[in-house]
């Protein structure tokens, strides 16, 4: 294993080409930077946030943002109805949003990839059963299903992740299945069987790596959808418990004051929108980069 260079030169060139393609795209660069900042904020929230997000100070309640009339530089984005610092709450809220988005997409991706691989590769009745299940899942309004499950099991971060994961696998399964349908007739799969490789190993080692690119693309889109879905659930009071700071919960709090104190609801809404948009743009870029024909002349 030692004598061989880690990466052959042309592969390195291909990867450099992918990197260049990303750098050329200004919008992509912005989106990825925004996401990077969000992740850093979320990870180091207690260190970065100027205040404890739960600390109330009724003397400064509903203080407008610093630049507005009556604003206070101590609370750059203002305070909510209990005098809690909105900037600090946004920073802490990013933790839940990003965690739920990433974990739900991962869970759905794992389920969807397995279902898609089996359906596409095995075919026959397992394929028909799995795809009918997917149709049923798709026909069922997932937010309603999420409501029902959270209503039964109670709310909590892991329930929300579970619900969004288990309701989101269909698009992954469909994409993987259709890719596998075209891959399994390729000769290298027959070749793998001809050297005595078993079905499970073929799926894991030969098919899965070849569907990773589309899988990742669906994944990023799902991250954005899951972030919004979590906010919706929290807004409805069925997501994460009230004492955890979430953007959806902040929106829900703020709507009562929209007429008098717009900043309480607008900032979490903006944060949600910017994050979802950044994730979506990143997903688009990822799809372009994953297709070698897009940047190789």
């Amino acid at each position, binding site marked *: *294993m030692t*004598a*061989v*260079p880690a990466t*052959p030169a*042309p*592969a390195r060139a291909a990867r450099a080409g992918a990197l260049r393609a990303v750098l050329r795209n200004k919008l992509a660069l912005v989106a990825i930077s925004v996401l990077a900042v969000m992740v850093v904020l979320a990870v180091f929230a207690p260190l970065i946030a100027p205040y404890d997000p739960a600390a109330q100070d009724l003397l400064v309640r509903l203080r407008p943002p610093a630049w507005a009339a009556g604003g206070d530089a101590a609370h750059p984005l203002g305070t909510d109805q209990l005098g809690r610092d909105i900037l600090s709450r946004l920073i802490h809220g990013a933790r839940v949003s990003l965690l739920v988005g990433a974990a739900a997409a991962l869970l759905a991706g794992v389920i969807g990839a397995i279902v898609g691989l089996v359906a596409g590769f095995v075919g*026959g009745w397992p394929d028909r059963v799995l795809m009918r299940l997917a149709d049923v899942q798709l026909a069922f309004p997932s937010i309603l299903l999420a409501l029902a499950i959270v209503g039964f099991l109670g709310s909590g971060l892991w329930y929300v992740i579970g619900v969004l994961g288990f309701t989101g696998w269909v698009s992954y399964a469909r994409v993987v299945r259709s890719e596998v349908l075209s891959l399994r007739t*390729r*000769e*290298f799969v*027959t*070749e*793998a*069987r*001809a*050297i*005595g*490789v*078993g079905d499970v190993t073929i799926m894991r080692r*030969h098919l899965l*790596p*070849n569907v990773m690119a589309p899988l990742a693309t669906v994944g990023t889109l799902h991250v954005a959808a899951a972030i919004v879905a979590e906010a919706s659930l929290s807004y409805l009071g069925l997501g994460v418990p009230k004492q955890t700071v979430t953007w959806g919960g902040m929106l829900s709090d703020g709507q009562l004051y929209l007429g008098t104190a717009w900043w309480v609801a607008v900032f979490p809404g903006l944060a949600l929108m910017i994050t979802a948009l950044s994730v979506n743009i990143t997903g688009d870029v990822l799809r372009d980069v994953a297709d070698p024909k897009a940047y190789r002349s």
Partner: protein
Amino acid sequence: MSALLEIEDLRVEFRLDTGTVTAVDGVSLHVGEGETLAVVGESGSGKTATALSVLRLNPEPPCVYAGGRIRLDGRDVLGMSAAQLRRVRGNEVAMVFQDPMTSLNPLKRVGAQIAEVVRRHQGAGRAQAREAALAALGEAGIPDPRRRAGQYPHQLSGGLRQRVMIAMALVGRPRVLIADEPTTALDVTVQAQILDLLVDLQRRHGMAIVLITHDLGVVAEVADRVVVMRHGRIVETGDVLDVFERPGQDYTRELLRATPRLERA
């Protein structure tokens, strides 16, 4: 010469929604150690379906082995369990496919793909499998095997890729090699090199070769015996020289006439 691989009255059907297609209809053939049998015929004559049947590689469903027997060293291949079959595949019987462009996994280094065969069948460790892969690449006439082993399929030319396929087929020291149009996708000079390589490796390891082709020039060059197929049936079989000099069937004569020659007619 005892028959190492023996196919007896094989019947292979594809049961499609639109009806049943009999791809192989009562084919019998045999090949012994150190012998080369050529199977020739036009597209759709059932030569590839026959070849894939030996390792039961036809997609089931829709494929059904409706009748006959395939014996490998006396053991019934069609009656084998999936696990038994996996031990035969790539180990006792290996295949080389037509299109080296699509027969290799595009995302894995070629050295690793060859090493996989060794690890699977000989239970070798990583380093050992790697050494075996390098040796196989060298044996298949690939210059600088160490560098090539670390490359991906798209970085190799068609001729090199076919050599990689041959290295992969031979690294397990199979007793039977089935080559399904191994030179069709290659240009003429490379074709000759690959055929020479096969003949040379056969001489050294004494394996049996079943060569599927529609190129009668290739047959004349390397085969001992020939089987001519059409519409899933064998129309003629015999020694290469006999068949070429005294074709017994109109179809064989036509095939021979369809082969371009250098001399003036």
